[in-house]
């Protein structure tokens, strides 16, 4: 076998590693080529000298490299004696050998590098999804566009600097007139079905739309007269307060907070609703932090979702 201590027979030398003979050939050859390239730029004589060096060195290198193939004896093998391991085997006091230290150092430093590199990368992958989740206020235009007791579909951009393909949202708005204590009242229902997020449609005729310009972008307004809302995907149905009347949804439609600024209706943060009691200006409901469709916000099932990002 190759690892037997004695020198192998001449016929078995092919099992030895083929160590190239130590020679200056490759370096001289490389120098010659470099001189040729340099000479092509600066002067022909330099290139000629380089070519000569390259040819001579290449010939010598090839002669050395093919020594074995031509059946000539190889140069002296590199002599190294590896018997220092034997000395380590002696009995002695307990100590901390070098290889254990190196093993620990390799694992420790490797782990440290891994953590230093991986944690920020993983954080960058995950954390942006959970930060900056606030909703921008959206200007829906002057109050004149929302006559009393009239449903208006408002299509707007939820984020002003995003392309409309990804940030266009729809809200169903109804001016309820005034509450009993004289405050203006609006019902603002999101069109996101709380089953699995498809857009619900008003069940009723919709008039031709008109578009008004606001600072956040154009807002399209369409008058409608629904007797409820329906979802095309899986048949969820809601009444005009957003309460579920049929189908798979698990709660009432989400609503929006709102404010009235200088005579304009401004949409605030959406919130989730379990059920709405009463109608119009007298509606009473509990507002929960907005959650994804399909999640319960009250009852036993709400315990499935104890943490909401």
């Amino acid at each position: 076998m190759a690892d037997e201590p004695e020198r192998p027979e001449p016929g078995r030398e092919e099992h030895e590693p083929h160590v190239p003979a130590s020679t200056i050939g490759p370096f001289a050859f490389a120098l010659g080529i470099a001189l040729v390239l340099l000479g092509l730029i600066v002067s022909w004589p330099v290139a000629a000298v380089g070519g000569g060096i390259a040819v001579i060195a290449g010939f010598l290198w090839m002669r050395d490299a093919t020594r074995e193939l031509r059946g000539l004896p190889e140069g002296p093998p590199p002599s190294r004696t590896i018997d220092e391991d034997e000395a380590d085997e002696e009995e002695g006091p307990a100590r901390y050998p070098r290889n254990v230290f190196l093993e620990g150092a390799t694992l420790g430093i490797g782990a440290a590098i891994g953590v230093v590199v991986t944690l920020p990368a993983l954080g960058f992958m995950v954390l942006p999804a959970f930060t900056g989740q606030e909703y921008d206020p959206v200007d829906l235009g002057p109050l004149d566009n929302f006559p009393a007791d009239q449903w208006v579909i408002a299509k707007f951009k939820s984020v002003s600097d995003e392309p409309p393909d990804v940030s266009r949202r729809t809200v169903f708005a109804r001016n309820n007139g005034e509450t009993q204590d004289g405050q203006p009242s609006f019902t603002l229902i999101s069109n996101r079905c709380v089953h699995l997020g498809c857009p619900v449609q008003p069940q009723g005729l919709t008039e031709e739309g008109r578009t008004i310009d606001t600072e956040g972008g154009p807002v399209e307004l369409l008058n409608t007269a629904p007797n409820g809302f329906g979802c095309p995907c899986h048949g969820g149905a809601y009444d005009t307060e957003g309460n579920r009347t049929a189908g798979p949804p698990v709660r009432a439609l989400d609503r929006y907070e709102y404010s009235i600024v200088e005579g304009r209706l401004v949409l605030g943060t959406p919130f989730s609703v379990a059920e709405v009691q009463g109608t119009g200006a007298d509606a009473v409901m509990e507002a929960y932090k907005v959650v994804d469709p399909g999640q319960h916000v009250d009852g036993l099932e709400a315990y499935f979702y104890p943490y909401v990002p």
Partner: protein
Amino acid sequence: MPKTKRRQQVEDVAMVPLDWLEERSGLVGATKYFLFRKVPAETNWFHTLGSATLTAFIVQLVTGVILAMYYKPDPENAYASIERITNDLTLGWLVRGMHRWGASVFIILLFLHMGRVFLFGAYKYPRELNWLLGVFILLLAMLEGFTGYLLPWDQTAYWATVVGININANAPIAGPFIADFLRSGTEIGVDTLARFYSLHMLLIPGALIGLITLHLYLVIRLGVTPPPWTEQAGGYEPTENGGKPARAGLVNPTPRGNGNGEVGRERVDR
């Protein structure tokens, strides 16, 4: 036929580069081991379903890499680039069609392969780990389908992904976090498409390649399972372990063999 001297010389010349490679890498021997390993005599066409699945995966890799040269993963250009691939670019319709239909072929073949393994009992000892690896490959393949479905960025893609993410959101406890991670926020936004693209073409395929490599390694190490109607029961490894009982199921199945070719000896341990 005795080799002529001329033929011997030609063979030697042909072997020089292979010998060079073998001495430095061992790859030639490894390839021979892979190609000429023993398989049961009664292998049949059902045993090709695994290779067929692998082929479908490689088709997806190749066509996906090419599609990535023309596809633009941002909301304003994605659909236009898909239209350009399909309608304008030479042969784009073909490559996109291969990728689109090949995705379904890949999933179908996965299930057929899984059915073969189940019905042949090939998931049993010592191959349980390979079944588990296969389950993870199936899950990642379905995740590939889910993430790839959004990329055309048309109405079907958008709303199917809305629904798919919200289904994920309904998982107890972790659901809301999974959904926010997939959307990169509370709503599908500008980052969602690029995120799905990265998952679809870098992260999940990388994991799939790793898992498939492990899967193949175990197939080669443990051998191919013969069909259940085989007559070859009681095989053993006669030479390599000195007549000791063979590891069950290796190359030849060993349901009852005691290593000496005797079959049907009673078990005494129960």
